[in-house]
C-alpha cells in the first residue's frame, strides 16, 4: 500500500539519550539511528522488553519527548511537518487534526463529565454540539460504558473504565495517524475485542498506526509489522 500512497509517518535517524543533570549528569542512552515508515492502513507494533524504549519512541513521535538527533515527519494537510523542529503552535495544530495519542492512563480533568471529555476533540474541530453528542454516546455505548457514568467526571472510575473513556476520546476523532501505548492494558477480554474492532475500523479507513500491546491476542489481531526496538539499542 505504501508504494501507492506516501507514508504518513517517516522517522529517520532518530536517537534519544536522557541526561539527568542532577544525578552527576548521568546519561541514559535509549536508541539511536532508528528509522521507520508507516503508510495508510498499516499498524506497526513496537516490540521489545520492558525498558527497551518503546514508549520513549512513541513520545518522541508525538513531540512529548525531545529526541537527541534525527527527524519525525508527519503528513499534515498534504505536507510533511518535522515534529522535532516545528514550533509549539504547529505541533499543537498537528495534534489537533492529524496525530492522536492514547496513553495507558487517562489524565483526568477534574469536574468535566465523561460525555463532555469525549465530545471535546470533535468540538475543537468544529463539529456541531448535537452531532458530537450523538457520536460520543454511540462510541461510549459500543465500549459498554454504563450510561449512568456518562454525566460523571471519570476521576472515580475503575482503571478499565477510565481506559475506555481514554480510548473513546481518541478514536472519536478518526485521526489519520494514531499512536497507541498499551491501550488495552487494563481491559478484560470482551473489552479488548471491542478495541481490536475499533483499531481495525480505523485501519480500514486508511489510518496509519504505531502501537504497543503487551497482549499477544491483540497484537496478532492488528499488527501488519513487528518492529523490534532493541535493534536500535545503544550499547551501554
Amino acid at each position, binding site marked *: 500500500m505504501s508504494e501507492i500512497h506516501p507514508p504518513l509517518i517517516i522517522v529517520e535517524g532518530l536517537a534519544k539519550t*536522557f541526561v*539527568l*543533570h*542532577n544525578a552527576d549528569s548521568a546519561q541514559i542512552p535509549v536508541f539511536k539511528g532508528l528509522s521507520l515508515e508507516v503508510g495508510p492502513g498499516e499498524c506497526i507494533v513496537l516490540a521489545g522488553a520492558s525498558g527497551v524504549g518503546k514508549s520513549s519512541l512513541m*513520545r518522541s513521535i508525538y*513531540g*512529548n*519527548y*525531545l529526541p537527541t538527533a534525527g527527524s519525525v515527519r508527519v503528513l499534515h494537510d498534504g505536507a510533511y511537518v518535522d515534529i522535532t523542529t516545528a514550533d*509549539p*503552535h504547529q*505541533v*499543537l*495544530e498537528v495534534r*489537533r487534526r492529524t496525530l492522536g495519542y492514547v496513553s495507558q492512563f487517562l489524565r483526568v*480533568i*477534574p*469536574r*468535566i463529565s465523561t460525555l463532555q471529555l469525549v465530545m471535546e476533540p470533535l468540538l*475543537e*474541530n*468544529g463539529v456541531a454540539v448535537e452531532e458530537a453528542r450523538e457520536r460520543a454516546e454511540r462510541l461510549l455505548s459500543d465500549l459498554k460504558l454504563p450510561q449512568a457514568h456518562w454525566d460523571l467526571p471519570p476521576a472515580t472510575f475503575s482503571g478499565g473504565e477510565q481506559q475506555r473513556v481514554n480510548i473513546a476520546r481518541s478514536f472519536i476523532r478518526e485521526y489519520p495517524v494514531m499512536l497507541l501505548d498499551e491501550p488495552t492494558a487494563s481491559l478484560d477480554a470482551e473489552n479488548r475485542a471491542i478495541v481490536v474492532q475499533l483499531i481495525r475500523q480505523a485501519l480500514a479507513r486508511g489510518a496509519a498506526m504505531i502501537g504497543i500491546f503487551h497482549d499477544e491476542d491483540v497484537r496478532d489481531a492488528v499488527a501488519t509489522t513487528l518492529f523490534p526496538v532493541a535493534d536500535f539499542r545503544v550499547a551501554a
Partner: protein
Amino acid sequence: MNALSSRIESTPLLKVDGLTKWYGHILGCRDVSFDMRAGEVLGIVGESGSGKTTLLNCVSGKLPPSAGSIQFETSRFGMSDIYAMSEPDRRRMQREDWGFVHQNPRDGLRMRVSGGANVAEPMMSLGGRHYGKMRQATIDWLERVEFDTGRIDDRPANFSGGMQQRIQVARNLIHGPKLVFMDEPTGGLDVSVQARLLDLLRELVRDLRLAVMIVTHDMAVARLMADRLMVMKSGQVVETGLTDQVLDDPQHPYTQILVSSVLQI
C-alpha cells in the same frame, strides 16, 4: 471566525524583545524575548524570586522596563510599542484590550463598592450608558463564573476568597479583552476551591479564545492551562517549549529539579 480554524492564530498579538528590568542593583528579569499569538496560553513558571511577576508587570504596562520593547496589536492603533504610547492612550488600551487577574483579589477589586458594581464598572468606564443592558450583562457574567447572583449587592469584603476571585475574573472578562494577564490566580485559595476555579478558567479561556499569560509556581496549574511554558531562574528564561514536553522531558538542570520536586502531575 471559522469554526474549523485553529484556536491559536498565526499572527503575533504580542512581541516582547530583550526585556530587562533592574530595581537599582537588584535584577528583576534580563533579556527576555517571546511572541504570543491570539488564543494562546503562555505559562510562566519558576521558583520564588525568579522574576515572574516582574516580567508580567513589565509586559502588562504596569512597570516600565529598564531596556527592551513590548509591542501589542492594539484595537485602535494596530501593532504599537506600549511604552511609546501616550499615557492616556495606554491606559485606554489596557481597559479595552486587556484584563489582569491578581493573586490577591484585594489588588484587583474595589472593596468599597458591591460585587455587581465591580463587574459592571469596566463597561461603564468604556462608555456604557444603558443601565438595563449593563445590569443584564453583569448578571450573565456572574452566572458564567458560577457566582450566586442573589449576593450581587454585597460588598467583596463579605465574600469568601473563591467568590472574590470569581468576581475578579468576571470583572476582567466582561469587556471582551484579547489578552488577559494572571498572576497566580488560584494561589491564595483552598485546594478544592482552587480546582473548581481552574476548571472554570480553562473553560472560559477556550470558549472565548483568549490569549493568556499566566504566572504560576504550580506545575499542575501549568499543565492544565498552558499551551506553552517559559521556565525562569534568576531573572532569565532557561527553557521554553510545548507544555507537556517541558514537564515530561525537561532539558535544563533547573527545570529537571523543578519538575522532579513535584510528586504526581
